[in-house]
């Protein structure tokens, strides 16, 4: 009981800290910035007053505004004169009632507008103009823009505060002041829901029931991808997968770990064939499979990490060409099926799947885990039904020993162990974010697959932000292989880039790969070396510290990705919603709704992203300190090495702050 009370107390403190971290920067920066333009209610408004207005000429063409960064002064009156050089474009300024249609070859005047609030606003194309339409963006900066300065100050302040906290009160068992070792046995302790959840998860049909609708969605993705509208945001395969699913997965990781893997249809077909069952357990355990063994050298995250990187190198094609997405998913589902028929286990999910790799990598940050109640009981029972299986369920298809499992990374939450255990020793636990991260970081020596997954994920969130929401056209053009389109969007040739286009893509691919695979890891290694020097230790090799510290990129990266996901949803929510009613983009309206595109609270997006960045930074610093405490037997060397690494984390946070601020 004492433990529960302790948890509740800790929980309240944790929630308060999270709320503070989330709301304080939001409030402070918003009020500071609003204060710049005293008594002003709107950022800018149509001005009726006489007087000179500055005219800004803008050219809109697929898929850029030129100029792409526009500076105006506070209180200045502006007339935008927008000319479209190719197809119909829209002109929309975030969060305001400024919207204009710009027909091809025509010039439209918007304004005069008076800008009464400083800050950075996005100008977006509001009429679908082709595959990259959602990314046709320019920055409008109303000077003097203090947002960035405030954001930078808050970032540095957070880093210093957390450093001071770990110096004075930092403990191995506490993360941001909360006892990270306290857990709740959800199936036992949570009334009504716990037993109900247990029954549901022990029901053999649950896996099938969860997978089936997703498999049907996949069929729809193939159909719409191959036969639907070639313009991405009008097609179900793009709008639902790359906006809705892609964003929701980031939240799912935090709250439910690898729950997506519970319902993922990619390996399901292979699993059903190999088991010769959709639901039940075959009484003779003969797999319809070649029963080969998975090579030990491939039993890691290297292929998954690299396949995620390769997928990301193609991301601007994937998220804009339905047929490319459909081909990718077809390849993945065939691979998942064939591999299961060769090796009857989830090795595709463990080692190959790009989504499985990054979900698994971040899943240690989840507040959710499937674990044994007592490892001692599992160890003492020779039956090991969780590994070998029983008439009630299969042995762990993820090739784990669930009873002794200490991390979420490779637990696909199939709940076979929960069904199998004759001792009722398996359960679901709620816990602190990253509860087992420091132990995992220390335990994993000389294996750098997950470290590189961290570097790839962290680098890519920056490149994704630049490519999806930045004004820098050249990056989008590189990623898009320089494809030019005409007015007839239905007839665009989507799959044949020119040689020049391929060279452009190489720029993108080399830049992203260099940063993710070489530059960032090299900088990180340099800082690890400095941290070792600062700690004045000689018996711990730099590579061990580098490997262990790289794990803090998991919580840090995840918060940045959540920020990215929020932006993705708030700006593009209308596309996936409409795609349910018109999946092929043929003008259907199956469910009787069709929403006009408009972003939700776009002007607040940076203020939502900032607290997430700061939370990630705080977690990274605190986890580094805990890992350091485990490395060195002393607070001083631990603090000194943490301080060095904090410089790198703060720099990385500032880079992201620069992109959003």
């Amino acid at each position, binding site marked *: 009981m004492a433990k529960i009370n302790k948890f509740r107390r800790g929980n309240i403190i944790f929630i308060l800290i999270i709320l503070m971290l989330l709301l304080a920067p939001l409030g402070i920066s918003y009020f500071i910035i609003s204060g710049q333009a005293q008594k002003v209610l709107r950022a800018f408004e149509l001005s009726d007053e006489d007087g000179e207005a500055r005219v800004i000429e803008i050219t809109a063409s697929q898929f850029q505004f030129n100029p792409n960064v526009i500076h105006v002064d506070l209180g200045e009156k502006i007339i935008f004169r927008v000319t479209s050089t190719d197809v119909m474009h829209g002109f929309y300024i975030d969060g305001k009632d400024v919207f204009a249609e710009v027909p091809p070859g025509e010039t439209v005047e918007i304004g005069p507008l008076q800008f009464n609030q400083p800050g950075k606003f996005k100008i977006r194309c509001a009429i679908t103009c082709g595959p990259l339409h959602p990314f046709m963006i320019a920055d409008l900066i109303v000077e003097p823009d203090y947002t960035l300065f405030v954001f930078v100050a808050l970032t540095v302040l957070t880093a210093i505060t957390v450093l001071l906290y770990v110096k004075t009160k930092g403990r191995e068992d506490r993360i941001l002041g909360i006892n990270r070792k306290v857990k709740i046995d959800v199936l036992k302790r949570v009334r009504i829901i716990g037993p109900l959840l247990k029954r549901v998860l022990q029901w053999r049909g649950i896996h099938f029931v969860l997978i089936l609708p997703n498999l049907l969605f996949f069929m729809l993705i193939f159909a719409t991808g191959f036969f639907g509208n070639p313009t991405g945001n009008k097609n179900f395969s793009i709008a639902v997968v790359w906006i809705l699913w892609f964003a929701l997965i980031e939240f799912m990781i935090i709250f439910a770990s690898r729950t997506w893997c519970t319902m993922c249809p990619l390996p399901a077909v292979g699993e059903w064939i190999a088991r010769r069952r959709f639901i039940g357990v075959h*009484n*003779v*355990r*003969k797999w319809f499979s070649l029963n080969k063994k998975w090579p030990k050298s491939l039993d890691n995250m290297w292929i998954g990490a690299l396949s995620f990187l390769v997928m990301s190198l193609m991301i601007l094609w994937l998220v804009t060409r339905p047929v490319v997405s459909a081909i990718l998913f077809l390849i993945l589902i065939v691979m998942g099926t064939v591999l299961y028929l060769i090796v009857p286990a989830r090795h595709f999910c463990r080692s190959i799947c790009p989504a499985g790799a990054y979900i698994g990598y971040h899943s240690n940050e989840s507040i959710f885990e499937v674990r044994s109640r007592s490892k001692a*009981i599992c160890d*003492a*029972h*020779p*039956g090991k*039904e969780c590994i*070998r*299986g*029983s*008439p*009630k369920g299969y042995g762990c298809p993820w090739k784990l020993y669930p009873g002794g499992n200490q991390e979420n990374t490779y637990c696909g939450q199939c709940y076979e162990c929960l069904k199998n*255990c*004759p*001792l*009722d020793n398996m359960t679901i636990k709620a816990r602190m974010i990253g509860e087992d991260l420091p132990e995992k970081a220390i335990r994993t020596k000389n294996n750098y697959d997950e470290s590189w997954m961290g570097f790839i994920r962290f680098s890519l969130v920056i490149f994704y932000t630049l490519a999806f929401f930045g004004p820098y056209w050249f990056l989008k053009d590189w990623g898009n292989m320089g494809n030019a389109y005409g007015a007839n969007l239905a007839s665009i040739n989507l799959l044949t880039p020119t040689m020049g286009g391929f060279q452009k893509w190489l720029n993108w691919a080399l830049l992203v790969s260099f940063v993710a695979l070489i530059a960032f890891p090299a900088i990180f290694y340099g800082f690890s070396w400095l941290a070792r020097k600062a700690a004045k230790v000689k018996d711990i090799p730099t590579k061990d510290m580098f490997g262990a510290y790289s794990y803090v990129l998991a919580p840090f990266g995840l918060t940045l990705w959540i920020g990215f996901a929020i932006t993705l949803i708030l700006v593009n929510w209308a596309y996936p919603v409409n795609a349910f009613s018109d999946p092929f983009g043929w003008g259907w309206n199956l469910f009787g709704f069709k929403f006009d595109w408009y972003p939700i609270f776009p002007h607040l997006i940076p203020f939502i992203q900032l607290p997430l960045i700061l939370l990630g930074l705080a977690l990274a610093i605190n986890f580094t300190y805990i890992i350091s405490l485990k490395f060195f037997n002393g607070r001083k060397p631990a603090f000194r090495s943490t301080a060095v690494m904090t410089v790198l984390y703060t720099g990385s946070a500032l880079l992201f702050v620069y992109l959003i601020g």
Partner: protein
Amino acid sequence: MKGNISILNISGAFEKYYWSEIDEKVISKHVVSEPLIDLIDHIDKAINAGLEKRGECAYSGSVLLSLVLEGTGRKYSYNIDETNDLYKEGKALAGDVWDALVDGLSLVRIKKQVIGSLWNDYLRRNQKKRSGE
């Protein structure tokens, strides 16, 4: 010896964890030995399917445990000694049954032998109980 299947240990485990728990009005030969009958059937199927002995005998331990739990109307056992005893005895018996079947003994004969021995054991033990020994 060919076809020698010892049920001494398993009847001890059954007395402790199975016979004392079953809630049947009429105790028959079938009720007394039901988990073993299913276990022998399972071994026969595994041999016919060409499965490997070691893994399948280990699995059979879990099969027996599962059958005993089911037979006594339970989902779990919270007694680790019970799970371990039943698992070990199931595994050992599965090995004997496997060898006997491979040696050419018929399934029916094995079943008869096991059921007969177990029934005798059950009666003997119950008689002792009744006579207060």
